């Protein structure tokens, strides 16, 4: 459980995080979505007690992170820039963290196995690929077997197999009753992994709720309907308050209504339908439309799509 109240972070004149209030519930995967510079990493660092909020509070499992007696048991975190000394081996890095909490060496070996690092555990981290670095970060996050996991861009740099692995891992952790909070700007990834979404832009919450709620909040999606008596159907739907546009002969696009409503109207009027299909906005479209303003704010830089692509390839 993560609870933020009016969480704000200002760096000089810039407000990176603006009065965020949210609750991340256990037993589910919550995606933290937003364009670069939206304040995701800053928020996560504040949750971890690494950065001090300018105002507001954030607690994890009921307490500010710094006040937990066994912090690694409460929260495991993978933070964006790999927080590892490149001159040390993966095993030494994990052993040094484990030592602080008196975590047994067997647990270090366990997380090394779990994350598939067994073959490179004694190699210096400086020679790791981005994907291996991510696996090490996830291993460190799992070390204390924490109740809450905070993963900043966990799939960044992973190959498809690795992405699949992270997806299954976080789903399993959430099914176990843990709180899983992961950030990403890979929308497609989120739709397959997250139960809930918290979308931010320019340090403010733009949307929050289940994945479907967030998508629905953007225009609600349209309904396509085909009927040999399209003209009559259009009139009946319009009378029902829906907006109807004719795409081609016999084909209508209805917005401001649902597939159920359209079917009901057709049935009551005795109109035959050949096709009735809801066109859901994809998460990608929803995200684009939600964050448009946030991105436009820094419009001189590269557009979102190419920024996303760049980070993916990093």
């Amino acid at each position, binding site marked *: 459980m993560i609870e933020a109240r009016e969480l704000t972070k200002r760096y000089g004149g810039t407000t990176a995080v603006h009065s965020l209030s949210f609750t991340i*519930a256990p037993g589910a995967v919550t995606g933290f979505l937003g364009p670069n510079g939206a304040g995701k990493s800053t928020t996560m660092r504040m949750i971890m007690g690494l950065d001090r909020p300018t105002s507001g509070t954030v607690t994890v499992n009921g307490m500010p*992170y710094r006040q937990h007696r066994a912090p690694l048991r409460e929260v495991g975190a993978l933070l964006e820039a790999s927080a590892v000394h490149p001159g040390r081996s993966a095993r030494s890095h994990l052993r040094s963290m484990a030592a602080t909490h008196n975590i047994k060496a067997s647990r270090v070996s366990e997380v090394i196995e779990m994350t598939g690092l067994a073959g490179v555990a004694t190699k210096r981290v400086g020679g790791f690929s981005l994907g291996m670095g991510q696996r090490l970060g996830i291993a460190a996050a799992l070390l204390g*077997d924490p109740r809450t996991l905070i993963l900043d861009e966990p799939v960044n740099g992973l190959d498809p197999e690795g992405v699949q692995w992270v997806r299954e891992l976080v789903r399993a952790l959430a099914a176990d009753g843990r709180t899983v909070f992961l950030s990403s700007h890979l929308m497609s990834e989120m739709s397959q992994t997250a139960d809930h979404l918290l979308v931010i832009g320019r340090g403010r919450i733009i949307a929050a709720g289940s994945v479907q709620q967030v998508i629905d909040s953007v225009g609600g999606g349209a309904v396509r309907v085909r009927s040999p008596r399209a003209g009559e159907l259009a009139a009946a739907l319009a009378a029902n308050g829906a907006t109807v546009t004719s795409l081609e002969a016999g084909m209508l696009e209805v917005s401001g209504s649902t597939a159920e409503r359209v079917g009901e109207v057709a049935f009551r009027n005795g109109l035959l339908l050949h096709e009735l299909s809801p066109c859901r906005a994809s998460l990608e479209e929803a995200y684009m439309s939600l964050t448009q303003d946030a991105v436009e704010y820094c419009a001189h830089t590269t557009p979102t799509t190419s920024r996303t692509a760049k980070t993916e390839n990093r």
Partner: protein
Amino acid sequence: MSTLTADPPTTSHAATPPAAAQVQPTFAGVMRGEWIKLLSLRSTWWALASTVAVITLVALAAAASLNAMADDPALAPGVEQMHGAEVISSGFQFGMLTIAVLGALLITGEYATGMIRSTFAAVPTRIPVLAAKALTLVVLTVVVTLVGVTLSYVLTMPQLSQYDLVPALDDPGSWRVFGGALYSLIAAALFSLGVGTLLRSTAASLTAALTVLLLLPGILSFIRLDWVETIVSYLPLPASSALLTTGAAETQGAYLSTQASLIVMAAYAVVPLAAAAVTLHRRDA
């Protein structure tokens, strides 16, 4: 305010595996973590090895130069006045250089690589980390100085014996010198750790620490003003030189008394560390 609730709470509450009951941070654990971090880096071994090497080599060079001194009629009487322990400890300033580098890297290396976030995530109260680093550094400095001085003692023995300068181990004067060297090296290491914690950047910390520790006395020696000379006498190198003497410092022509030198060196160790401890808690990692 937006609340994201799990649909039906899938399991009663978060899993708490039984094995984890006693798992929590202790200062001993933090210490062990620091040891693992320190000994798993090559740079540590380089810094330690070069400290030992530098202390030993300079002692050897100083012992070898006794021949030249003895041959020079103007310097020959000086040789008899010397104490063997001073010859053996003559590499201590250079040892100060490498040990100070190690002290600064201990913390700036973590800031430079981002490791500090892992460290502070594990120990969010932070102060125990600084305390553990300081303690680790003291232990290392003691070990390295002991090894360096012992090696110097043994290796310079053939040369020193020619002039009857091998320091007697029952001579309190010898122990004063060795003790003074150790005390000064510990102070220099801790000073550097404190400066590194305050400045965070490796380059800035090394520049600041080495300037104060080693360079300033040389730079300021060109200024012949009373008050500048007074300041110089309080700098670490002159202050510690007063400790590396066989008798009481004030009888050896040093500006500071032994006691004053001990206090001044302790202040160099403690003041930056205390300031670092205060700021460490407040600043973003």
